[in-house]
């Protein structure tokens, strides 16, 4: 007679790494979300031909249809936010836990309330909640390599938080990827802003800060403070990234490569009509080299695009 013993079943979770377990849970949730989005878009017919007449009944129907789609998409996102929050709570401290939290924060809807005062109050409350949540993230993840994600999404931070947290991370984080991110993202935001100002004049700053043209002229005449070129500090940070963090990966590129691109970016004059197109040496997605100059002799449409 053979005796069969029940073998204890070894749980797959008991011995696995919490980071891995969290990543798997996160990937499963992402797949659910993608599937739900796909189901939503498949349930919709393609949009009808757009009528030329903006006041026509077709046009009104078209707008209503777009609004309805946008509402459905919003409902879908709202239904997923608690799931991302729950996953983040369960795996707080891991990379996937932080990624889920940042997803939930960045997807949170702006309040849409007709009454302006109420709407402003609701927006303030939303910002306060995000500030509180990001404080919590910093507390938990300050020493973690995963906080690079917060630096990347530092638009979620208030100006003070951003200066305080990213300043501390660039000095104190034990992880090179975090220090690099804390240097790179603020510099990149400042540069985009300078580029916008270069293109659209200083209208932007005046409107945002409520400075009138007269105030600005008066300040210039008074010459109270010598103007410091903001590029000096930014360029020093970019050089630091090249020198110290050149090989640290950033998405599919490196902090060094991107910093170098910023430092050597073509000016608006160089990219003006009737100027020779600067050479591009790059690769396709499989790593095969492509040069823009190999298309000389042909008319080229150079199309910067993304599938989003």
């Amino acid at each position, binding site marked *: 007679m053979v005796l069969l013993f029940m073998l204890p079943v070894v749980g797959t979770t008991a011995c696995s790494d919490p980071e891995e377990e969290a990543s798997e849970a996160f990937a499963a949730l992402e797949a659910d979300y993608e599937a739900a989005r796909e189901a939503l878009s498949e349930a919709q017919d393609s949009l009808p031909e757009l009528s030329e007449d903006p006041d026509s009944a077709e046009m009104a129907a078209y707008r209503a249809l777009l609004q309805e789609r946008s509402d459905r998409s919003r409902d879908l996102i709202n239904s997923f936010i608690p799931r991302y929050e729950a996953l983040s709570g369960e795996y707080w401290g891991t990379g996937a836990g932080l990624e889920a939290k940042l997803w939930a924060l960045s997807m949170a809807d702006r309040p849409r309330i007709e009454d302006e005062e109420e709407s402003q109050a609701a927006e303030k409350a939303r910002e306060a909640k995000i500030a509180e949540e990001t404080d919590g993230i910093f507390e938990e993840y300050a020493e973690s390599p995963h906080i690079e994600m917060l630096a990347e999404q530092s638009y979620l931070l208030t100006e003070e938080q951003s200066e305080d947290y990213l300043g501390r991370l660039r000095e104190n984080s034990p992880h090179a990827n975090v220090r690099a991110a804390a240097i790179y993202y603020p510099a990149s935001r400042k540069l985009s802003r300078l580029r916008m100002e270069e293109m659209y004049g200083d209208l932007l700053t005046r409107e945002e800060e409520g400075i009138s043209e007269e105030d600005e002229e008066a300040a210039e005449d008074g010459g109270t403070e010598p103007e410091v070129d903001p590029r000096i500090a930014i360029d020093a940070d970019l050089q630091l990234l090249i020198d110290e963090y050149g090989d640290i990966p950033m998405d599919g590129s490196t902090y060094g490569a991107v910093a170098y691109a910023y430092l050597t970016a073509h000016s608006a004059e160089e990219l003006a009509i009737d100027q020779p*197109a600067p050479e591009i040496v790059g690769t*396709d*997605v499989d790593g095969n080299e*492509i040069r823009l100059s190999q298309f*000389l002799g042909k008319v080229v*449409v150079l199309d910067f695009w993304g599938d989003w």
Partner: protein
Amino acid sequence: MYPHERSLVSRLAEEPFVLVGVNSDPADDYREAIERENITWPSFWDGGSTDGPISTKWGVFGWPTIFIIDHEGIIRGKNARGEAMDEIVDELLEEMKGG
């Protein structure tokens, strides 16, 4: 976006014309788009993000952004889309043939 580009590429298949992409998607999304949208034209891959080195170097912070370049490598058009893009391309092809 894609249908217009595809029709431009197929209409000018026999002409000295090429559409060259600079793509900012993560590699997997990009490969999937190539297959799904049947993208046949050459494309730089810019490291998987809108912070990629080519976009950065060219000061691109809005997508899509278009530059039209003639057969001698001179920038002749920017941000023309749809029919306006087709017109410039046709003019440049004419010009090239000494029209």
